[in-house]
């Protein structure tokens, strides 16, 4: 009779060391995204843990990603938007201190206001539009890059984002107001 419990080569290599490298490289970015959307430190920490847990459970494909950070931010954005939808929570308008710091970078106040305006308008739109908005105005990806992240073609993303831009008085890159 053959042994009933014999491990085949190729099991998980996941351990605390790998998790620590993720924590150091990506922790604040993912946590910041979760806070940005959920506006609550405790909820954000729970959501962040869920995001990294998915990386842990999909270690093989995660390691093969060209940009692990892009993968994490996509999952974090989608997950947090779903948390809000599931809770039936409205989109909160206040700015946290973190976003003030964020706005001091390139674009300064102008960029901060754009993010504020589009975020206030998000509740009017569907989940995929919300994702596109965050990747475009917060991650500052191009239309083409947003399309890749969301596995969609550029035209529908442009249409979605133009609707948001129109509602908030913004313009898309390469388009006049």
């Amino acid at each position: 009779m053959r042994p009933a419990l014999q491990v085949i080569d190729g099991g998980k290599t996941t351990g605390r060391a790998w998790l620590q490298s993720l924590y150091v490289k990506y922790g604040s970015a993912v946590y910041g995204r979760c806070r940005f959307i959920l506006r609550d430190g405790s909820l954000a920490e729970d959501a962040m843990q869920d995001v990294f847990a998915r990386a842990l459970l999909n270690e093989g494909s995660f390691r093969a990603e060209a940009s692990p950070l892009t993968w994490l931010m996509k999952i974090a954005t989608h997950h947090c938007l779903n948390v809000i939808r599931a809770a039936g929570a409205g989109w909160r308008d206040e700015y946290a201190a973190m976003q003030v710091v964020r706005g001091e970078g390139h674009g300064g106040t102008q960029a901060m206001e754009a993010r504020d305006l589009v975020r206030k308008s998000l509740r009017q739109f569907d989940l995929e539009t919300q994702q596109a908005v965050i990747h475009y105005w917060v991650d500052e990806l191009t239309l083409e890059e947003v399309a890749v992240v969301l596995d969609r073609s550029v035209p529908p993303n442009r249409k979605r984002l133009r609707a948001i831009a129109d509602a908030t008085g913004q313009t898309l890159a390469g388009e006049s107001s």
Partner: protein
Amino acid sequence: MTTLATKHPGELTLRRFLAEETLDAETTAHLHSCSECAARIGKFKEEQRSFEAEVPFERFAAGVEKSARVLKKKPTGSLPVILMALAACFVAFFAGREVLEEVRGGNRIKGGASVDFVIAGASGQRPAANEVEQLATGERVRIGVSGGKHVLALSIDEGGEVSTIYAQPLSAEGQTWLPDSLEFTGRGREYVLEVLSDAPIATEGVTAQLRAHFKASGGDLSKLGDLEVPGVQVHRTFLKP
């Protein structure tokens, strides 16, 4: 690179740079010489320091591991369609390399490449030798490959939802059993595609093709046909319990 009125890279690109991910040469050169970007990256470093003070690693790790256990047990609609089961679970279902060698349901491909699917559950294990395989409750699938340097495995369900299962280089000579057994959640059919190639294949391109074939077939997983990708491709359809 950025949607703002500036030629500087966008936020995600800056964060990728900080995380030492590979960027194009032009962007990398810019980031090595731009003081504005350096200042912005400095703020991200400060964010990380604040984060580490607010959420210590031990708390982070314990929370992630707990979440992983919960996600494994109770996949929800927002989870990936496929649950990657840990090796620890795997041993309860598969009796070892020798048995797998006997039962694998394989496709021999020109050039010596092969893809093998093995199904295992409480009632034992068997090769997934047929084009369409019915899975019983609790049954899992393990995939073995040989003869390629890279493997890309995707699945698509009856709703057209595509999931990446594996995208990784194959370092070992001969047969490689890919990590973990797979348990498919939900109901209906799951079409699993394996592509073995000599060079890495962009997941996004294959995903897009799979979606296009799905659309062209009217959502019929039995009519997806071959994709236009380099390398060899093998597929199986699993009927979920």
